[in-house]
């Protein structure tokens, strides 16, 4: 093998050529198995914000994936059921339509598969999956919504996942000053930020992992954070390079999502830049793309200025009005318990009530 062609190609790439690699896509990709419908988006939006999906009825997806923190929770690691401290930081769900494997360690193959994970997880939402279907069926508004969205199918685990996943795919970062620059408006970002863009693509080689318009390769890399979580290594066993490897996060709106990394261990973007420049742990699993950069203060400031241009004017997310709990007398039956002088509701009657039928 002589000198590989790429070396000369890469060296010759100009700022203008790099810009063409970051052009925003024209549309959101939806999978064939779960195509877009507005009904799914509306239903998924409600489910995402509905705490009744959790065992305690007080945690929704949006409790942790909070749009006010760019779909994270602003914590080093979040809290789940009964305030259980979670092992990893809540990642954003922004631009997840373009993702490949889900979670920091890629253990889920799709958004649909992922959606059912947290509801069932004891530490997160602690809900029995079978119980969810029953609980939603008891809410008249959801029965209607599911029937309209999935004609002839109604409420099921698979349909809950499909609606949530479709809603998540519509969560797309808005146009940022960087996008206007890529589109040709030279005044939309500072000269410092433009120099930062050059550093990002060349000297600092951030692009080798944070590539394309969404600033991620959807890949797994060990970037030398010193904690002992082995990340992807727990899923893909016996592979040196997967030890301590985590999924590359998007950098869109990144300023809104401190603290950073899977363990929330870096408080600011400056700390992140220092980490890449000279602060990472060297070990066998460390990515081959991680090299000491020794950036000077000017270069670090330029890189930071560039990262700040990725903050978009995202649309305001409305908190949806959720379907009300059932108002039919069935609920009162329970109050008439034997202790209260009434008759306890039998299992049969409960099932009948949940299906809006009478029981004898």
């Amino acid at each position, binding site marked *: 093998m002589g000198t590989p062609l790429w070396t000369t190609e890469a060296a010759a790439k100009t700022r203008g050529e790099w810009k063409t690699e970051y052009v925003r896509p024209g549309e959101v990709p939806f999978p064939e198995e779960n195509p877009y419908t507005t009904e799914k988006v509306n239903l998924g939006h409600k489910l995402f914000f509905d705490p009744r999906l959790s065992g305690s009825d007080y945690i929704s997806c949006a409790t942790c994936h909070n749009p006010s923190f760019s779909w994270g929770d602003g914590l080093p690691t979040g809290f789940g059921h009964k305030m259980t401290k979670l092992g990893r930081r809540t990642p954003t769900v922004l631009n997840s339509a373009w993702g490949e494997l889900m979670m920091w360690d890629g253990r889920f193959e799709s958004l649909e598969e992922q959606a059912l994970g947290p509801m069932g997880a004891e530490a997160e939402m602690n809900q029995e999956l079978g119980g969810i279907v029953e609980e939603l069926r008891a809410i008249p508004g959801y029965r209607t919504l599911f029937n309209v969205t999935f004609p002839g199918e109604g409420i099921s685990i698979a349909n809950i996942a499909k609606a949530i996943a479709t809603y998540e795919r519509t969560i797309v970062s808005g146009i940022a000053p960087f996008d206007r620059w890529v589109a040709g408006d030279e005044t939309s970002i500072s000269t410092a930020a433009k120099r930062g863009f050059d550093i990002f693509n060349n000297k600092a080689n951030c692009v080798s992992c944070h590539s394309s318009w969404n600033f991620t390769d959807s*890949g797994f890399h060990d970037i030398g954070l010193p904690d002992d979580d082995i990340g992807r290594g727990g899923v893909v066993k016996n592979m040196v*390079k997967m030890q301590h490897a985590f999924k590359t996060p998007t950098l869109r709106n990144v300023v809104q999502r401190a603290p950073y990394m899977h363990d929330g261990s870096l408080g600011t973007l400056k700390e992140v830049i220092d980490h890449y420049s000279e602060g990472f742990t060297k070990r066998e699993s460390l990515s*081959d793309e991680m090299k000491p950069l020794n950036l000077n203060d000017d270069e670090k400031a330029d890189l930071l200025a560039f990262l700040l241009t990725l903050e978009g004017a995202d649309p305001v997310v409305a908190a949806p009005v959720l379907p009300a709990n059932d108002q039919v007398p069935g609920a009162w039956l329970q109050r008439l318990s034997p202790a209260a002088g009434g008759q306890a509701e039998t299992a049969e009657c409960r099932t009948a009530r949940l299906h809006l039928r009478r029981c004898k």
Partner: protein
Amino acid sequence: MRLSMLATAFVFAFATNAIAAEVAVTQKGRKFSEKKIELSVGSSIKFINDDDVTHNIHSTTKGYAFDVGAQKPGQTIVHTFGKAGKVKIRCAIHPKMKIKVTVK
């Protein structure tokens, strides 16, 4: 496309005596040169890393799992498919890189 057609031609021509073929697949710009490949049992794929980053080809398909380990730019690795079936191959580092291999 040309390569998989070539591979299919082998399957048809030598189905009975299962002649082994070698198909070349390059990795460049974090993409495989092929998305789907058909091979006869005993055939191999020669994976060439023409990229500027390390790749790591592996499969987690039950019964066909393998891992070639870290493959640096310029390195070539050959993997032979010993039995019939459908194998999903990915790069462990860049999971968007994937190929479906059908071994007949």
